[in-house]
């Protein structure tokens, strides 16, 4: 039973990754691509981690997985902000 739920979670997570990548390729300008990437991929990673936590043998690995997810969340949010800020500054300057 656990396996079915975790595989379901993982597959849906992959679905979000796919959406993010398609968004990266299809969307017209930088900001919307950034938007797609950070939103979809983080949610995908969240589902992936949830799926993996169910498989994890002991609590310690589960905690480490959530820590990884939180770190990636913070890092991608900050970097998305920085990229957008940099692009914004270059647009207003030129």
């Amino acid at each position, binding site marked *: 039973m656990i396996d079915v739920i975790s595989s379901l979670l993982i597959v849906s997570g992959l679905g979000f990754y796919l959406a993010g990548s398609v968004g990266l390729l299809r969307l017209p300008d930088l900001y919307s691509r950034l938007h797609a990437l950070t939103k979809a991929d983080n949610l995908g990673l969240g589902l992936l981690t949830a799926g993996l936590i169910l498989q994890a043998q002991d609590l310690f690995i589960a905690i480490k997985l959530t820590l990884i997810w939180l*770190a990636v969340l*913070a*890092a991608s949010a*900050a970097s998305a*902000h*920085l990229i957008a*800020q940099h692009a914004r500054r270059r647009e207003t300057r030129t």
Partner: protein
Amino acid sequence: MNTTAVLVFDILLVLSLLSLAVATLATRDAHRSVILFMAFGLVLALAWGRLMAPDVALAEAAIGAGLSGALLLAAVREQPRQTLTADTNAVHSGNDAGLKVILQSVATLLCVGLAATLSWALAHALQSAPSNALAQAVQENLATSGVSNPVTAVLLNFRAYDTLLELAVLLTAILGIFALGPARPGYRSAGPVFDSLAHWLVPVLILTAGYLLWVGAQAPGGAFQAGAILAAAGVVLQLSGQRTLGLPQERTLHIVIAAGVGMFLLVGLSLLFLGRPFLGYPPAWASALILLIETAAMLAIAATLALAFLGGRPQSPRLNATGEKPAALSTGTLRAAMHPVRSGTDADTNSGYRNSSNEQKQ
């Protein structure tokens, strides 16, 4: 079902590795090639994970993709965005198109030949199933090596001499960078968001580095990965505008970067005086000695890689207005010393000689 799934995954991973390598090397724009190189490093870390080499995956992600990428990005940032075609210092002086094409085809041919013969030789080598002697030897001696993680045992005990020389390589690199002149002008603060991220990220990085150092004895981890993560903390600090990134000044800075090699020599030579072979830890103290050496090595690696990103000695805060530091070794005098009047510059002497008496003006 399982083996074919793994095979499909392997083929996908290999294809992505090759395509990333080709993309990195074929792009015309320096910025793009650096970003693609970092992506290549991360996918390579994935490959190390797949080939059951977690220690190497950690190091590749932290040092290969992370710090090398940061160094390359810092270098690209300073270069004007000129594309590759505009480059002038061609190694091959043949600048007309014909010669260039010939050279490129010859080089390509040479490399295709190299690839073919190398893989033929490797296939031959893998076919004859090399003896697993060394792996068994490591397994047998693991008990007395003081650590249970075989890779750390090889790195810090069986082949500790290699690691000593490798730390000396790091020391040479940073001394070379120091000799080249003052540090990079440094970064303005990147805005509140990044500062708040740095504010809590740096302590977490330091904590993780300590954890990795400690866990290196039993599980994947160790001095190099921990040092790389500490260096990453240093890089984040620099990017958020902190100039001296918490490193000590002059004398203590030299002690920190020489800590790795120094501790190795201290332990090795003192064991020599106790009648044991150089770096031959007695089994009882082995784990303690290894941890001691790893701590010093972590500090040395972290300081060296952070200073390499900084590009030279950190500007000490006690500088007076003109950036001059009273002590003889400040970067100010380094810049002045780098262009001495006398050494080798073509002084315009009349008969080709100066009266050597005013030379000795020590």
